């Protein structure tokens, strides 16, 4: 049970360079794959391609194949893909559907779109709210939440479809520290709660150190390193690729440079 990239190349419509240039990657269910890379390395594109939104929604050209549990994303309709792979973006507010006056209805948006039975819709909303611990926000206006809360509501809206895979594109980058902690705590526990396979793009390597089983490093549209989380984060080439290692490692290295011996711990 995987999302598999095979020889994936992707170029946006009207662009000269491909954003992804030969990606071979596998995401397993029940595990977390972290993706790091400098700006413009293709991380966001990777998310869109993984979820099948590229090229289905934004045109552009896809070479190679992306298969979600055996189904190729090429030619699949977005609403079919929505049930297989959910996506969460950076900006919490622009993801709100703008159709709901309460969080409850916002979370119900996706199940309702698919025409599921009302009982089913209610079940899913309640479960999603419970999984993320935001049942108390159910009656609130989604437009009036803090960044972290809004992001969790968006996430609830996504998992209401119970997709076996989740793709998260820098979900905490527009949140303040409090929001970041809120969201990252929940994410960390999500795999256990739902058994989903999660692909998470993040700058915050500390966060990935906690969450990710495996990590892939992207540079100019290619995977330059991939392996177990702790190994990749300890790789000395990380900074060359424009990525700041987790604080534990940075501290250890700085200490070593000062002649003090401190064990290099990724966490």
């Amino acid at each position, binding site marked *: 049970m995987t999302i598999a990239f095979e020889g994936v190349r992707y170029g*946006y*419509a*009207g*662009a000269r360079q491909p954003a992804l240039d030969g990606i071979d990657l596998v995401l397993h269910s029940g595990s977390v794959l972290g993706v790091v890379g400098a700006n413009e390395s293709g991380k966001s594109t990777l998310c869109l391609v993984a979820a099948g939104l590229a090229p289905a929604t*934004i*045109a552009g050209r896809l070479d190679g194949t992306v298969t979600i549990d055996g189904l190729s994303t090429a030619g699949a309709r977005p609403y079919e893909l929505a049930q297989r792979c959910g996506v969460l973006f950076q900006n919490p507010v622009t993801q709100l559907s703008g159709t709901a006056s309460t969080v409850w209805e916002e979370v119900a948006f996706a199940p309702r779109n698919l025409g599921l039975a009302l009982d089913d819709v209610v079940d899913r909303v309640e479960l999603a709210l419970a999984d993320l611990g935001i049942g108390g926000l159910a009656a609130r206006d989604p437009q009036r939440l803090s960044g972290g809360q809004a992001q969790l509501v968006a996430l609830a809206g996504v998992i209401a479809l119970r997709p076996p895979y989740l793709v998260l594109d820098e979900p905490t980058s527009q949140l303040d520290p409090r929001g970041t902690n809120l969201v990252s705590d929940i994410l960390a526990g999500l795999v256990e709660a739902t058994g989903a396979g999660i692909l998470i793009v993040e700058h915050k390597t500390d966060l990935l150190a906690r969450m990710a089983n495996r990590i892939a490093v992207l540079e100019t549209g290619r995977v330059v390193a991939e392996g177990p989380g702790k190994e990749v984060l300890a790789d000395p080439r990380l900074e060359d690729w424009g990525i700041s290692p987790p604080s534990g490692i940075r501290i250890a290295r700085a200490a070593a440079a000062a002649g003090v011996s401190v064990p290099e711990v990724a966490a």
Partner: protein
Amino acid sequence: MDWLSRQFSTRVIVLMPIAIAINIAVGYTVQTVLKLPIYMDSIGTILVGVLAGPIAGALTGILSNLIWQYAPGIGGGTIGPFAVTAGVIGLLAGLWGYLGVYRPRPASGTQLYGAALVGVAIILVLAWRIYTSPVYGGDPSTGGYGSGVYLVIVGIGVVAALAVGGFIILRRDAAGAWVAVAGAVTGIVAAIVSAPIAAYLFGGVTGSGVDLIVAALRQGGADVFNASLGQGFFSDPIDKTITSFVVYIVLASLSTRVLARFPLGERIAGSAAAY
């Protein structure tokens, strides 16, 4: 009907509320806060028409007026019935979109000055047509209105011609001529469609600053319908031409990557494809 459903892709559906809200917000701010004698409530309509097509544009216009009329809090007045005009504006904008009117046309030298000349000429011709329109009481030399009205028309015509010519030359972009023509034509059609609505439903008065123009025309002897038409010929071409340029400037600064995702986007993308 694929042509129709393509006009209403998800992206267009997302753009429409934004366009409608811009229509209402800018219209409200310009008319009520800045108190200028223009409408500026069609930016979104023309934007959608050019990017997505005539039906999407028309629907944007119609919904803008209806929602503005019935929206709790800011609604009211005489806006609702002019949804017809707004629909026509959107339709025309779609036509301009198909014709590629809003595509940048970088030019230089004789081509550039030629375009500037064309633009200036068309503006002056339109101003002249309005100047001598029977609606204003006919030939000024044989009576009709006080020279004030005519002077203003001439003045606006000259300023508009200079602005359009300057735009073309300073930006080295011949598209200015097309944009000006599209705006002026839209304005004239809008005036013709609006006049019966204003005259028969509201007695020729719509409660905005332009009523002063209506009063002046009535004083000169124009009946209810002709006064409304005269006021329309006065305000609408100016308003729609300015709007046309605003839309053009906005579109010209969007990257090809963004434009290409809209149904008519490729017709707008210039040769200088900025990614």
